[in-house]
């Protein structure tokens, strides 16, 4: 947890700066709006954390979010009575995609970078093959409640954070970190390494499903809804001091990383650095943050479990 202190300081600083630039932020409604906006990325970051801390990557979450939303719209097609069955199906899809990612990575020994890169292509290809190139259908009001009403989003975020923290405190979480830190030692201590990783991928898939439900609910159907979310989620996790390659970092810090990233976007927006230079600033900050974290531990390998 000590590694995570800087991220909380940075986050606090950003929040203060936002409040200074926009006092509305301090009102409950303003803060609620911020939380609602962060929720999907924070949930994705929590899911991505499990995969990263176990020493892998999940590049498929962005596509998966899109798939979830597009599938929901096509199946619900405005029919309220379909809401709950489809919600259940989305959760199953998320878990299933995670399961496949996990099995291909562990059993077929395909590096997760490639597994999930392939999944990314397959998922977005398949869903648009199914809908003919652009989303079809519509979400029901019941479905959209979760993303539109701030209270729901915050509630779901709270549940996700609590669950993530509890999971990380449980045997599963401790052994998962062990897997990411030293797979061999974990295996020789009786840890079911493959199973732990598969579960991590499933958690990531689940988080993408939840994020998809929130994002789809928030703004409706869109083919771009998941675009580049995988990179944002990974960036958030790394900003939280979690080490790519696994074995180090705290889930709360990863979520704080998501808050930091979103706060950074908000602040840049408030100061009119939107669009153009926003990305440049973001790039520099990410490199700087990771470099600052890495320099304290000079013994890092170039590429830990090698992507």
């Amino acid at each position, binding site marked *: 947890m000590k590694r995570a202190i800087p991220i909380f300081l940075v986050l606090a600083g950003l929040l203060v700066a936002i409040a200074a630039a926009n006092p509305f932020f301090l009102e409950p409604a303003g803060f609620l709006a911020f939380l609602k906006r962060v929720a999907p990325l924070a949930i994705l970051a929590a899911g991505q954390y499990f995969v990263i801390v176990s020493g892998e990557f999940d590049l498929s979450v962005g596509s998966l979010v899109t798939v979830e939303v597009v599938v929901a719209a096509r199946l619900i097609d405005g029919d309220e009575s379909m809401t709950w069955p489809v919600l259940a199906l989305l959760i199953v899809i998320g878990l299933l995609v995670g399961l496949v990612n996990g099995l291909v990575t562990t059993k077929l*020994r395909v590096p997760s*970078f*490639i597994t999930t890169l392939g999944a990314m*292509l397959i998922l977005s290809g398949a869903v648009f093959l199914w809908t003919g190139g652009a989303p079809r259908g519509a979400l029901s009001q019941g479905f959209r409640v979760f993303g539109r009403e701030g209270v729901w989003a915050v509630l779901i975020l709270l549940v996700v954070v609590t669950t993530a923290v509890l999971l990380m405190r449980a045997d599963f979480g401790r052994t998962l970190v062990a897997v990411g830190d030293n797979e061999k030692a974990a295996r020789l201590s009786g840890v079911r390494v493959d199973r732990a990783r598969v579960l991590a991928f499933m958690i990531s898939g689940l988080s993408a499903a939840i994020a998809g439900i929130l994002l789809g609910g928030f703004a409706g159907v869109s083919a771009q809804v998941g675009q580049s979310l995988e990179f944002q989620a990974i960036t958030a996790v790394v900003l939280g001091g979690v080490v790519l390659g696994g074995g180090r970092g705290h889930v709360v810090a990863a979520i704080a990383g998501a808050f930091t990233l979103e706060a950074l976007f908000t602040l840049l927006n408030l100061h009119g650095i939107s669009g153009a*230079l926003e990305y440049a600033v973001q790039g520099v900050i990410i490199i700087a943050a990771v470099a600052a974290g890495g320099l304290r531990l000079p013994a890092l390998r170039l590429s830990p479990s090698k992507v």
Partner: protein
Amino acid sequence: MIALVANPTRAVYAALVATLAIGWVLVAFDGGTFTLNDMVGIQQRSAALGIVAVGQTLAILAGSLDLSVAYLISLVSLVAAETMAGQPSNILTAVVAALGVSALVGLVNGIVITKLKVHAFIATLGVALVIRGVLDHLYDGPAGRVPVEFQQLGYARIGPIPVAALLWAAVAVAVWFLLRRTRLGNRIYAVGGDVEVARLSGVRTDRVVIAAHVLCSLCAGVAGLLLASRLGAGAPTVGTDGGYDLESIAAVVLGGTALAGGRGGVAGTVGGVLLLAVLDSVFNQLEVNSFFKDVVRGVVIVVAVAVYARRTGRRAS
């Protein structure tokens, strides 16, 4: 069959031949034919990705990877086209400027990875974002103009062979030669194989990683020049539209180079790129939906790597 699969490079070429054959049959059933023109098309289509992927091979062999190539390609196309400004007399300056920018980006990538000890994934992603910010800030759309003389690079043919394909071949051969016959090549394999062993053997590992990144970026720069010549202008989205970042990594891995580094080579990458291009061409012939194509590509890449992993045996830690 076993012998074919035993070596990823051979496997990818076997797959290439098989795809060509199957594709030919499918196209024939569809009532079409594979013509010389299609072959030319394949070469044209492969050239830019091929050049980037050859560079990416160097980064990956050295145990790193480069996610910034796509934005770099866009940047280079703009630098080149703007410097040329339609004047043939500016071509040389433009090429030098474009390659200079590329080398600089590669240098930054390499230094951030080795000296600041930032994981290559984050380092090059961060650099990509910085380039993206610069592009968004400076450019709204296509800019600059490439003189007709320089467009020859993208359009001219020598006999049936496009100049672009020759350029790709030249880059591939140069890098193959570098890997096979130079000290740097040897050391790229060593560093990718095991940094610690390389360091203890007296290799300046940081320099090797930096050099690999500079070369990788230079290849991206050459691809950017090629694309500028094809488009007749620079375009701020040409790199990302082409998906050259992830696609080049996919091609390298498809060619049997280990993502962990130290194993593989340019020959495999060329095969990987050709395989993707042939798939593309067959799909084009069959007028297959582009989404279906993505699905097939995804499957092909994962299956190929799974096959290689099967024979390489259990990954150590």
